[in-house]
């Protein structure tokens, strides 16, 4: 078991870039459902949803990464992740697949990359011609960030 920890990633899209989250963090992927806005919450928190009786906050990743806003589409999804005993939903544009990325193919993030804050990135996965930005979910969730 120990050998194959963290080399499978759920891959999704935000704008034109591809991102990945460690599959062990992901509980499920949901289609867009009705979100209740929470007043006075940080701007990147879209609100809360009902996940089988639990109230779960939902973070708009585009907002979190200071990207331009998009209208939700048919393909918009909520990825439910569990980190440090906190369950949150992340709103993303499209989820595509689960990819296995060899450890050797994961590189340290270069100093200048993409449009998002450096500290959220855990590495860059290279799969053939594609570059996949691997996210550190616990950093995204930490309130101070």
């Amino acid at each position: 078991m120990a050998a194959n920890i963290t080399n499978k990633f759920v891959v999704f899209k935000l704008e034109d870039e591809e991102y990945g989250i460690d599959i062990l963090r992901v509980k499920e992927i949901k289609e867009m459902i009705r979100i209740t806005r929470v007043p006075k919450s940080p701007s990147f928190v879209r609100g809360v949803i009902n996940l089988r009786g639990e109230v779960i906050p939902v973070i708009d990743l585009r907002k979190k990464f200071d990207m331009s806003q998009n209208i939700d589409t048919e393909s918009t999804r909520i990825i439910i992740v569990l980190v440090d005993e906190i369950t949150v939903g992340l709103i993303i544009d499209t989820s595509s697949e689960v990819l296995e990325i060899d450890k050797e193919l994961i590189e340290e993030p270069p100093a200048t990359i993409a449009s998002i804050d450096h500290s959220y990135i855990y590495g860059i996965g290279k799969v053939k011609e594609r570059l996949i930005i691997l996210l550190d979910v616990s950093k995204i969730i930490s309130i101070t960030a």
Partner: protein
Amino acid sequence: MDMNQYLEIFIEESQEHLQSLNQSLLGLETNPKDMKILNEIFRVAHTIKGMAGTMGYSKMTNLTHQMENVLDDLRNGKIDVSTFMIDVLFECLDFLENSVNHIAGNGTEGNASADEIITKLNNILKGKATQEVAVTELKAPVIDQGIMKFNQYDNGVVAKAIEQGFNVFKVKILLDSGCMLKAARAFIVFQTVERYGEIIKAVPKVEDIEDENFENEFSIAIISLENEAVIRKELESISEITQVVFEKIEIADVDLSETNLENVTEAESFDPSQNEEKEATEDSHNKKSKTGKTVRVDIDRLDNLMNLVSELIIIKTRLEGVGTDNTNQDMGEAVEYLERITTNLHDAVMKVRMVPIERVFNRFPRMVRDLSKELNKDIDLIMSGEETELDRTVIDEIGDPLIHLIRNSIDHGIEDMGERVKRGKSSTGNLYLRAYQDGNSVVIEVEDDGNGIDLSKVRKKAVEKGIINKLEADSLDEKSSVELLFKPGFSTADKVSDISGRGVGLDVVKTKIESLNGIVEVETVSGKGSKFIIRLPLTLAIIQALMVTIGNEKYAIPLNVIRDITTIDAETIRNIHGQEVVLNRNNVLPIIRLNRVLDVEGSMTEEQKEMTIVVVKKGEKHAGFIVDNLIGQQEIVIKTLGKYLSGIRYIAGATILGDGQVALIIDTNSLI
């Protein structure tokens, strides 16, 4: 033998016994001659000794043993109750409590030594005439072990038992000479016999047998419905018992010459030393029937049960929604039935979680006693409503705030005796602790007839501390001045208590109470005393709420904070110091536009001429919340927003509506 499985029971039961010991000791202090209390204390000490002995906690055993000696002399009138003795007994209690807590923490008794207390106990014993010591010390081992004689009281009991069709035996038990744990064997014998009947007498005395103050034999008298053979067979099956001699007692053997049967029941009350064995057996019987009826349940399991009930209520609400659209009558009836059952189920589960507030109040008499001694004030604590029930989670949290308030009252509220007399009050200060249910909430009051709060000093202090400025201070009315006490930063320094006499950590009290969805209020009359009033919701998890819309969002307002609902004309809104107000029932009512506070877009209230306001109270204060529409009253299950969104202002939590949507619960306290 593995003792771990009994450890929990030991701890729980010890705590219960210590609690009752605490009460009895306080009772003894006021009624030193009351035999009933003394017997109760003796019984508790004895029980703890037995339990601790079984579990192998030697320090507790030694200490309780020594306590027993003192108590026994007390009971026999050899020594009298003194304050010093009560203090020492309280020390014993503290030591035992610490030991139990220590055991609960890590399974051992801890390093604290009981020697000092034991020495004190010994000194009490030695305080009496020296010959007497010699006599009692000699007496124990010399007791005639062979012959069991019934006294008048025993004869009465025996005669009555025979009359009612019981068999009465004198049983002599001979232990193997190589028996190592004689007391343990005897204990097993007692246990075995108690399955079939009651032991009314033992020779030597039970305590002596437990202390192994006997040779190889002892006798007991048994009352049982079983015949000799059954009991004999059981006793003989115990190892290391060589011989069991039965002697059946017939009515003719009983010497009733000086007894008449009616006396028996009376005898029990005035002859405590004789019926001790009987009490002990009776007690074990009571316990047996009790354990049959109650079950100890882990609070987590109850929480889980509560969650499931919550889910059920959500589904029920959802079905109600479906039911109204559906014309099928059966469906409607079924949903109605379901509703009744879920309501009952909810009540039942809530009841299971309810604990009488006695549990918290119990420790206060002792605390007040210690504090009044320390401060050399004479204080009567008058408690009422101990049976009032509150949710277990609230009970666990409410203790500290109450301690705070009581300490405050004693320390700063109630004056010195001299001062009280000078003011024409009785030298004894009165501290009232009351609990009662008021509608859907429970009220706890801490009231003293002391100094009261000097509000002008409070205002002055607040200005010094920079909480308000001079101008504000002058315009403050009484209510707002009292509020200053609860401001963080007002209280921290003890200097405050020197000046105003109040305010040690009151902000902490307030925060705690508010975290339990409660409120604190103060009423005070300078020179006459003050009253702190805590108001707590009965339940925490499920509440009745008013559902409203603001813009196109739905919100819940807890029903218990709503005073009324009314409509106002937009033109009647006035502006005072930047605060919108209306005149309502001849009072100035501040209004809060929820759509603005909660940043809701598209609210109609901005243009409407007639507006719906929900009047909400927080203690004595009121405010009108402007909403777009009322949906109706509904039972809602409170869910937290979770760690990630903790500390969001104005929102107390969330709930899931029948259609699966999430609605937020407005935290009215933070808005007023």
